[in-house]
């Protein structure tokens, strides 16, 4: 699993310079998504308003992470690290919610 890093040639991902065209495209996509999420919030969707808003936010986040933060072109370790962070965040939210959601269920 381990490599002797300082004996290898520079690993491929370090040499990969993302082109400004990609940045422009992603930036434009983010702006479009921003307009979309604002516009959609004016449409009556009931509970789905929150779902759609969060979904769009997640897509925007994914674009920023993959392209602006270069994770798409980064090592497996970086990808694992990002994943670990999100997972822990999800654990905090979901497991705390197990308490709050079930409080009203009444004692067994």
């Amino acid at each position, binding site marked *: 699993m381990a490599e*002797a*890093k300082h004996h290898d040639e520079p690993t491929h991902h370090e040499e990969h310079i993302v082109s400004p065209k990609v940045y422009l495209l992603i930036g434009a996509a983010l702006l479009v998504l921003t307009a979309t999420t604002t516009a959609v919030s004016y449409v009556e969707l009931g509970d789905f308003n929150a779902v759609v808003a969060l979904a769009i936010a997640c897509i925007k986040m994914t674009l920023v992470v993959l392209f602006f933060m270069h994770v798409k072109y980064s090592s497996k370790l970086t990808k694992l690290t990002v994943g670990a962070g999100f997972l822990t965040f999800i654990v905090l939210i979901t*497991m705390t919610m197990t308490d709050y959601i079930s*409080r009203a269920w009444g004692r067994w």
Partner: protein
Amino acid sequence: MSTIVILPDQTTATLPKVSYLNKEYGLKSWLLTGDHKRIAVLYMISITFFFFIGGAMAGLIRLELLTPPSDLLAADTYNKVFTAHGIIMVFLFLVPSVPATIGNFLIPIMVGAKDLAFPKINLLSWYLYVVAGIMILCVLSFGGVDTGWTFTTPLSTHYLNTHVVAAGLAVFVAGFSSIFTGLNFIVTIHRMRAPGMTWFRLPLFVWSHYAASILMVLGTPVLAITLVLVVLERTIGIGVFDPTKGGDPLLFQHLFWFYSHPAVYIMILPGMGVISEVISTFSRKRVFGYTAVAFSSVAIAVFGFFVWAHHMFVMGISSYSALVFSLLTMLVAVPSAIKIFNWSATLYKGSITFETPMLYAFGFLGLFTIGGLTGVFLGSMGMDIHLTETYFIVAHFHFVMVGGMLMAYLSGVHFWWPKITGRMYPEGVSKLAAVITFVGFILTFFPQFLLGYLGMPRRYAAYPPEFQVLNVFSSAGASVLGVGYLLPLLYLTWSLKYGKIAGPNPWQATGLEWQIQSPPLTENFVETPIVTHEAYDYEWLESKKGSEVPTVG
């Protein structure tokens, strides 16, 4: 009694001419150092200082509890004393104990690197620790804080006039000290291993620190934001923990324990790493089931995030949620048990000798097992309802933290003392201190299991008279324990000047740190090592010794 210690001829041996200790002189060279070894020494001095302050608080507690009425300390003062004891011992001693001292010193050497990945951040980590310590001392001097180390709301936010904000901020700062240490370790272990040092050739000490570092990096920030919210609640009155404004005091506890449960694994995992090294060396045998022990460290780290609400069973969380957390708590005990089994299997048919580090390790094996098992009792919701907030809990965590972690720390300090200082500690008095500590510990804390089971609540200055006998045993034990901890302070300091010259490898141990001089050079290695042997490879050590001429100086 046989021993594996081989020292160079004391009539001709001297310390090496150049080492990290004498490379540069002067206060600035220490206070502005980037050398992980010097930072480790700075940490060692600081945490010892705070340990004895926390210990003094413990002394006051046990003195008060000699008699049923609250006659030595008023109840409010008693609250301040046990809060100080808790905050200092948890945040200023146990969390940094092994990682910041022995870990800082050894991780780069064990992976074959010249230093940690970020030396300046390492130094910053120590300064943050010192600032936190000074803030705590100020809090104590200006009247203390009496919330308990757990800062439970709404007591801490609405019902007290003590220095909660200052104490909270001090812990916030200490938290960042911990985060930066963990960050440094993770990056170093991933990215700075020497050629040939694969993951599965790393000493288990490194695996334990890796797991603990993951907890430090992912868990501590939640504590940080929780304390920020408490400060905001107290100063501005934002209302997130205030029922009258619609807030929920239990939210604090969820966020607090989300860190503080992994924190107990942050505290114990590095100690377990020490035990792996010590048991292997003094059984002359590789650790049984290396892979299992390595993965169990990571498993403890992962599962440790899923169980925090077992500290809140009686606090008002839903029974359904409590059921989930109780089941998961059963799961988290398994990896720890795996380690105990593997260490026992390592001992089996090994060539066991009883030098001081090994005595502490044996103490660990017995006491941590008892503490861990009582943790399983407490994780079972039905038992916990009766035992929570009693002395059973106090006994449980002192068994794992003091009987476990502190013994592991002392084991590690003794084991690597020759490497850090170049000198041996005096073996006779150190064995005596280890035995005194063990006896004192049992006398102090075993009665507390009985007290808790009989119903004595924790954090009470006064108690019903029927509990006095057990309390007197406990306090008597505490004085013995105090002697046991004072002795190392004295003889280790003595050994700095008068201890025997140790040479590079007095224990005939494997591991990269034992192949370099004692004390090490600032850059650790003369040439970057290339690793070709597995961890705990005693055959390799034998073949290496055959072709070696031991010289020192």
